[in-house]
């Protein structure tokens, strides 16, 4: 169970650091397709920033920033972007994952299209990794029942 953090130093420092950590995470994602870095690494950094937020402030205070439904959507949609980019190539009458086909809609040459295709894959991977990391953290630290959810469940059980 994550309790509300009481330490003012930790809370203040985290509040100051988190935007920079997230910016760095985005930077790593955006440069991943032609330099060291990438969707996974960037996603981990983004996820770590949210976990820091949860650790410093506790779930009750931080849940408006990390809504569980959004995490579900992100983890699904993130991987969907990954696979969907490949599928788009198929829709454009190429082979699956043949990013050169994206040149038809991006108005660039094949090499640039491949590069941009990988970028879109990295963005999808980053989203999914971030969301899944935070979900795993929440699941493990709360034993699968989020605070607040318990009361709701009891309420529905009583009604039934």
């Amino acid at each position: 169970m994550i309790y509300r953090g009481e330490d003012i130093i930790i809370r203040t420092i985290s509040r100051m650091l988190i935007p920079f950590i997230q910016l760095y995470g985005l930077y790593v994602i955006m440069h991943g397709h032609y330099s060291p870095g990438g969707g996974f690494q960037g996603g981990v950094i983004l996820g770590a920033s949210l976990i820091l937020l949860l650790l410093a402030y506790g779930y009750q205070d931080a849940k408006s920033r990390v809504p569980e439904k959004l995490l579900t959507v992100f983890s699904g949609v993130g991987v969907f972007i990954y696979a969907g980019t490949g599928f788009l190539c198929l829709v454009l009458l190429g082979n699956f994952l043949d990013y050169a086909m994206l040149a038809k809609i991006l108005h660039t040459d094949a090499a640039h299209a491949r590069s941009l295709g990988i970028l879109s894959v990295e963005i999808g991977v980053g989203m999914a990794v971030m969301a899944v990391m935070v979900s795993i953290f929440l699941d493990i630290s709360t034993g699968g029942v989020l605070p607040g959810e318990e009361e709701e469940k009891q309420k529905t059980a009583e009604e039934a």
Partner: protein
Amino acid sequence: MILEQFPFLVHSAPALIIVIPLMFALLTPVIGLIRREWTFPWMLLALLLATLFSVTALQDVMRNGVIHYRMGNWEPPWGIEYVVDHLNGLMLVLISATALLVAVYGKKSVEQELPGKEVYFRCIFLLQVTGFLGIVITGDAFNLYVFLEIASLAGYALIAIGEDGAPFASFRYIIMGTIGACFYLLAIGYLYIVTGSLNMADLARLLPPLYGSKVVLTAFAFFMVGIAIKMALFPLHVWLPDAYTKAPSAVSALVAPLMTKVSVYVMIRILFGVFAPSFSISVVPAMKILLVAGIVAIFTGAILALAQKDFKRMLCYIIVAEVGYMVGGVGLANTTALRGAVLHIANDVVMTAGLFAVAGIINYKMREHRLDDFKDMFKRMPFTMAAFATIALSIIGVPPTGGFFSKWYLLQGALQEGSWIFVAALLFSSLVNVVLFFRIFEIGYGFHGDHGHSAGGDGGEAVAIREAPLSMLVPLMIAAATIVLLGFYNQALIGKIIQYAVPVL
């Protein structure tokens, strides 16, 4: 088929078979957030499309020969290549059709056993099917490992949400399964060191001059042991009975028939597609070892099945014995037995899926699945039990059903090879199956116990017919009808597909 008017779709079928269930699986949680009930038609649509494309791919193979599909248009061996030939074309159709039927069948039981978890269940279910299809379709040894892990991880999750004790059973499976997958990965690593290639066809071309190399021999040993764990070949089967007994009904009906059979497929593919048949026959005595392992698995599987009081657990040991049939059939190393083994894969998928579906229906009605729960079932659920009896006869190997013909080919193969002990094992296991299933028929007709009749009862007291829901009954009936049809059309299946699927030894 309708799809033939769209040559591009036929060309893309190998990719679509994988991509459709995968993408549908990823969007399932999102759909579930909008409307929980929509996930069910959503999943059915994915599986229906996968089945459609699998059938298209198989037809294309039968008409125009082996299909090669390049992922990302990268030329093999650098890029990943999907290859559909007669063997995996048949497997694709089996997997996707079974998954479709189990999905329809599983709706009611999932709603009863896992209330509130349907959305995630359906998501992982689709991922599981994606894993199976991917293992079968890929022509790249490393890609196969990736799909093996997708299928296994989805399987661990699906099994762990079962009844009491399921998480523990699943954890044991994770330990065993991970060791198996690690061995497989190590084997690929060894082959990659000596050949620099991961493409199966390329490996088959590069390996023959290296057959003496100790690295290749080690890799081969790792392959065989790793896959043997995944297919639950005796004595590496210990994870299977617990895992498949405690899994939710719909999961046992999907995973129990497919995981073991897909692993047998991988073994056949490695023995004949990556290594040349001459390697495993003459360079190393692999075939002899497989034959012995198969015989031992048949005997022990049959004996252990006799000792069970739980229906699902009994089925699990029958699977252990059935794996022995297929491994032994491969180990006999002649064309007839090999055809029998592949035909038995097809039959066994249908039979075990059907039997686990019966177990699920019993569980749906009685909330448990012991043998005693079959009491009076012939009166209560005549249609379910009729289908059950048909499938049971096929497992025993009674002529008009499919099970007889695959056993017949295996027997002929064993006779050609002069392996009398395999013949004995087959006959012994068939006899044990007779005992196993007639015991259940006896319980089902209520012959045993209460001979004196309780006071006032006049014996033929009417038990009201309480059939299983149609959505569970119809897939079971289709399975029972299929196993009979597989028996009638076994010649056609062998002549049109299987004879091209296996090498002539």
